């Protein structure tokens, strides 16, 4: 019998143990994603096609105009490239979570000594980060070909963009997790995710927030949706250190709020778990 079991049930609670636990979950999940490298091809192809089509649309829209709502054509090409990275890379957590809920797999995951949300977070983020990295490389290549030089020039600016993309990924996860967990009360919750996707699309993924009418743009800033894509894209194409700091702070605040919401939804719904069979 191994030594730790003699001490009886209990966790060490050490940060290093948690890091190993959730880090390994992320890595193993990444390995599983990489078992089929061809799976990357689908999103690479769709992303590339979207960027190309929209770069042509912007070219037509900007013929004879220097800028619209403060964005010139090059900015718009790079905006779309950056805004679509979190949408493609982090935008599909809901599906696997909802599947776990519907299949009853969620119940079986509860027999392990980990934080349920933290485990799902690490498991989802591992492969999503790999997706984002591959998409970013493709995006940079396409941006240089179709738009012009990369707008950020310093390490600080690059680090701010990476941080903003990471926060966008975390926010995406927590919001989608909260939506998926509504299945504790509502059998079919796909409609909520559909609404979420559309709100995210119009509040910064498809077009910059500045393109919306004044009142709509102002209202959107009080919701988490612009911080999923608009914030990193804005940092990338219209660098202003003060604005970047404010955007990062807003992203961090929304991420923390969404994480708390997840905890609350899971705690409230856990008692409602029913498992098939029995």
């Amino acid at each position: 019998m191994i030594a730790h079991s003699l001490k009886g049930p209990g966790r060490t609670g050490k940060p290093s143990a948690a890091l190993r636990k959730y880090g390994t979950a992320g890595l193993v999940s990444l390995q599983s994603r990489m078992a089929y490298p061809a799976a990357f091809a689908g999103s690479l192809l769709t992303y590339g096609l979207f960027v190309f089509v929209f770069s042509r649309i912007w070219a037509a829209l900007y013929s004879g105009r220097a800028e619209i709502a403060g964005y010139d054509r090059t900015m718009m090409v790079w905006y779309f490239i950056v805004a679509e990275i979190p949408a493609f890379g982090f935008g599909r957590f809901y599906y696997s979570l909802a599947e776990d809920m519907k299949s009853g797999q969620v119940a079986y995951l509860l027999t392990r000594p980990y934080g349920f949300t933290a485990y799902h977070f690490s498991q989802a983020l591992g492969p999503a980060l790999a997706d984002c990295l591959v998409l970013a490389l493709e995006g940079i290549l396409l941006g240089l070909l179709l738009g012009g030089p990369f707008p950020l020039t310093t390490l600080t600016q690059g680090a701010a963009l990476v941080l903003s993309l990471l926060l966008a990924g975390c926010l995406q996860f927590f919001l989608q997790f909260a939506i998926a967990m509504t299945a504790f009360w509502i059998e079919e919750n796909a409609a909520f995710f559909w609404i979420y996707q559309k709100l995210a699309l119009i509040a910064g993924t498809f077009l910059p927030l500045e393109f919306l009418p004044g009142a709509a743009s102002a209202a959107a800033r009080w919701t988490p949706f612009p911080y999923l894509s608009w914030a990193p894209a804005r940092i990338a194409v219209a660098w202003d250190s003060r604005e970047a700091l404010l955007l990062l702070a807003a992203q961090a605040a929304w991420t923390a709020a969404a994480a708390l919401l997840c905890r609350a939804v899971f705690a409230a719904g856990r008692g409602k778990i029913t498992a098939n069979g029995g």
Partner: protein
Amino acid sequence: MPVITVENLSKTFRTRVRSEGLGASLRALIRPEWRTVQAVREVSFSVEEGEVVAFLGPNGAGKSTTIKMLTGILTPDSGGARVLGLEPSRDRTRLAMGIGAVFGQKSQLWFHLPPSDSFRLLGAIYEIPAPELARRRAELVERFGIGPYMDVPVRKLSLGERIRCEIAASLLHAPRVLFLDEPTIGLDVVVKREIRALLADLRAREGVTIFLTSHDIGDIEKICKRAIIIHHGAVVVDESMKTLKHRALARKYIGVKYAAPADLELPGLAPVKRTEDAASFVVDTRKHNLQEVIRALVDRGEVLDLTVEDEPLEDIIAEVFRGRSEEEARGAARAGGEAES
């Protein structure tokens, strides 16, 4: 010292029901109908450290629901349970460190990766230090004979190979209590025998308490020392396998084959199966003297073969379920009659 104590544990589910047809679907949108199912009702028992207990019952009896409450997956509506001194629904993560669970129809291994990766992840999840993990893994790999499968993606393993890996994975953290929910479901006879031998060995070597649900009587006969039978959510039998098997002494299965066609009519005892020169009898030893029945059969002709067997455990358990259902039906009829009068 008991490692599992269950007192008046109850769980009710509310299931949405939909009648057939488009009209019913539309009505269900406005006024959904729900059915309440009492999956477990006031179940009580305790399990001592190192015991191997079979938790039996027909489909829908409440076996898996009980296991899910004992592992912290489901929260009971009323009553209480303690496993290793902890309340499963409240101390889920702490309890998880001391228990292992294998659900025969759900995999804990990553489907596209070899089991070695799942073992590495489980080692991290259970916070097992690296050297200890390597030693324990090597020990389990050898004992379960899974060395050749450790680097093969799980999707390419046969069901038997996968289940062996699943059970080994659930033992990585050396749990004190192992919950097995239908571990041999879908396995062939040879693999079932191997799994049973491994479980018996595990009990002998590590003193692990095993709580097993199964439909397979072979699993129960070979490895369990005690049986708890649950029916319609309530415990109907809780006794040692020895006592349960003693019920078999009341009935004997006799098979006889003669060299030539023989007269097989015995006074007050009809054969359950017969041909011209062979027959099978079920003898209730409370009504018939076994020795006299055998003597009568031997006197009927030249005997080529004669077998006397105990009643199979499967039949005894089926009899318990049947008796319980009839009792419930009689109770319901009585209640109905009283209500009418």
